[in-house]
């Protein structure tokens, strides 16, 4: 019996974390796993901190991932990586999009955006890969493809074949954006392998 694996996708409402989790979910489903995804809708989607959970294995019970449980955390923004660091399992992998989006308390001056977030995370001993997903997304054709670039990075660390990922993309993105998203995925995959 294989152990349940846990993945978290964290970011800022509006960054497309939901689509990323759905692509991941359909790839895992096609491999015959039991899969659960937990999403956040409603008020948090309006620019707040958002998190989706993806779990798979022979039998998954809880749909959520708790502190110290995530095998992978895919963070769409630096500060969110810091926020959710405690959810990473010992030996888990953290992938961070090196993008800064100021939360409102920082904009109003009520709080400071910490300096050197990535260096500090690394100093804590976490396995971390940082990627400039926004540049890669723009290279693929749209800043909106940050989510698919990051799924590409995650894919480079998981033992799932390319055709499974391509089918998952086809099932979840609109046909007119498919080619752009395939390019975004490939750029992310290459960045992860570097």
């Amino acid at each position, binding site marked *: 019996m294989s152990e349940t694996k846990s993945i978290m996708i964290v970011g800022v409402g509006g960054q497309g974390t939901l689509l990323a989790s759905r692509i991941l*979910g359909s790839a895992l489903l096609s491999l015959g796993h039991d899969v*659960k995804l937990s999403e*956040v*809708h409603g008020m948090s989607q309006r620019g707040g901190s958002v998190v989706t959970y993806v779990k798979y294995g022979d039998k998954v019970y809880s749909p959520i991932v708790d502190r110290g449980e995530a095998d992978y955390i895919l963070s769409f923004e630096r500060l969110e990586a810091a926020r959710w660091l405690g959810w990473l399992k010992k030996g888990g992998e953290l992938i961070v999009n090196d993008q800064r989006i100021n939360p409102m308390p920082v904009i*109003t001056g009520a709080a400071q955006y910490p300096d050197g977030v990535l260096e500090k995370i690394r100093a804590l001993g976490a396995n971390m890969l940082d990627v400039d997903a926004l540049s890669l997304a723009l290279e693929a054709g749209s800043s909106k493809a940050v989510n698919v670039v990051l799924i590409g990075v995650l894919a480079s660390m998981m033992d799932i074949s390319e055709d499974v990922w391509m089918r998952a993309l086809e099932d979840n993105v609109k046909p007119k954006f498919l080619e752009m998203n395939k390019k975004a995925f490939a750029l992310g995959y290459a960045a992860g392998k570097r």
Partner: protein
Amino acid sequence: MKQLLLGNAAVARGLYEAGCRFVSAYPGTPSTEISEQAALYDEIYAEWAPNEKVAMEAAIGAAFGGARSFCAMKHVGLNVAADPLFTASYTGVNAGMLIAVADDPGMHSSQNEQDSRHYAEAAKLPMVEPADSAECLEFTKIAYEISEQFDTPVILRTCTRVAHSQSLVELSERKEPELRPFEKNPRKYVMMPGNAIGRHVVVEERQAKLLEYAETTPLNRVEMGDTSIGFITSGTAYQYLREVFPNASILKLGFVNPLPVKLIQDFAAKVDRLIVCEELDPFIENHCRAIGVKVDGGKDIFGLQGELSQSRVAQRMGLEAKPAVDFSEAVPARPPVLCPGCPHRGLFYTLHKLGVTVFGDIGCYTLGALPPLAAVDTTVCMGASISGMHGFNTVRGGESAKNTVSVTGDSTFMHSGITSLIDLVYNNGSSTAIILDNSITGMTGHQQNPTTGKTLKGTPAPAVSIERLCEAIGVKAENIRVVDPYALKELEQVVREELAKDEPSVIIARRPCALLPEVKPQPALVVDTDKCVGCKMCMKIGCPAISVNDGKCAIDPTLCVGCDLCIQMCRPGAIGKTQEV
């Protein structure tokens, strides 16, 4: 073939497979997607009602009319629909009727965390509670059987983690029940005292039969394992327990009202230590105590507030927490904000600037309470803005009506703001009500409403004219003003003028939600750092795209949609469109 479905989509699939023909709902997180998904099936008529009470009454009528019917709402929506709920329990149904209610423990997107199970008990209605998507589908179908077997509406209760989690389901074909004949039967359907007295007897007899059903239904399941500890649980709490205690004995209740007696007593007798694990109120726990079952732990362990999770269950049961390394310093919070380009931003900036008291309501615009806009002073429930302001101004008298406004969204105005405005106008109030018309129901994710000219199915519909409706209520035409909230100067002028009047006024701040597909984002604005003097006036509108970099304002091009609001704030003229700077 197995499919991954959202809990809400699985309920919708259950409606389809059970042959449901009629769906009516008002959107509310986390229940909204049930109706949106049901609307995708051609065989199901599905509509947005103006509010939950109307939705439930329409579903009652459809069930009387012989078709399997459905209505959905969030937990607080059931408060709105409580009136028909209690009496539909007396009338019973004809064809099956299901009411879905989605609770929100932890308040991801709600103003309270009430426990809907109390409604089932108080209204004497059966309630089922699924724990994942497969059960959402299955329990929906079984609920219609229960409804028709016992002649009663049935409540299906979910929570955020069931409604908004995806898990595997197996699909089946639709079974299409015949439309049942409607036979006139005033003793059953006309609830005046003489008839209702008789129906109450029927309700109590039905309760006794439902209790028998609760003892044997497969919705309640005993999973015997290690008998040193036994848990009684339901819904999502079951998943957390199973993850933490794979070998424990568990009585998983899927039929949560009325709760079984003998089944619980028998289970309790087989285990050394009995723990009740449930989110929110001690509903199952109190029942256990009432029937004389010794409970060794319940709310004293798990608490009354918020959500459970596997680690909360583990830690409160005395198990060690998993090792975790936190970030080395405090991480600033990231509360939700009004989106870049949000038409509400200009209004809240203006209200904050004028220093007025603002009675708020439920929707995206509740976010106008957060700094730096910090304009909203009260939020209670759907529709409470105008009526609350009326009471406030009436008791405070004097200049209060000249310094107080209410803010209500278009959908919320249709929901229950209209009757509040009638209260104000009919009783000779002089307050100023602002209606934020962004042409959609925003917070729940863009649902049509009676003002938008489209139905849930996407077909064209007559659009309610807010202006003409307010006029018909009795607001004078010259006191009904329509203004674009992007035009800051004009907006401020209009608010000042209407506040000064000794008559009731309505200001309609009208501009479509910036996230609607038909609203095309404009090119991002740019800052001329030579002209920027670092006055931070542009920061006062609380736009997430604007921040200060080395003393000068900076605009994030990936967030900015070019709404021009900050251009109006910038006195030195440092912000402009790309080609102008």
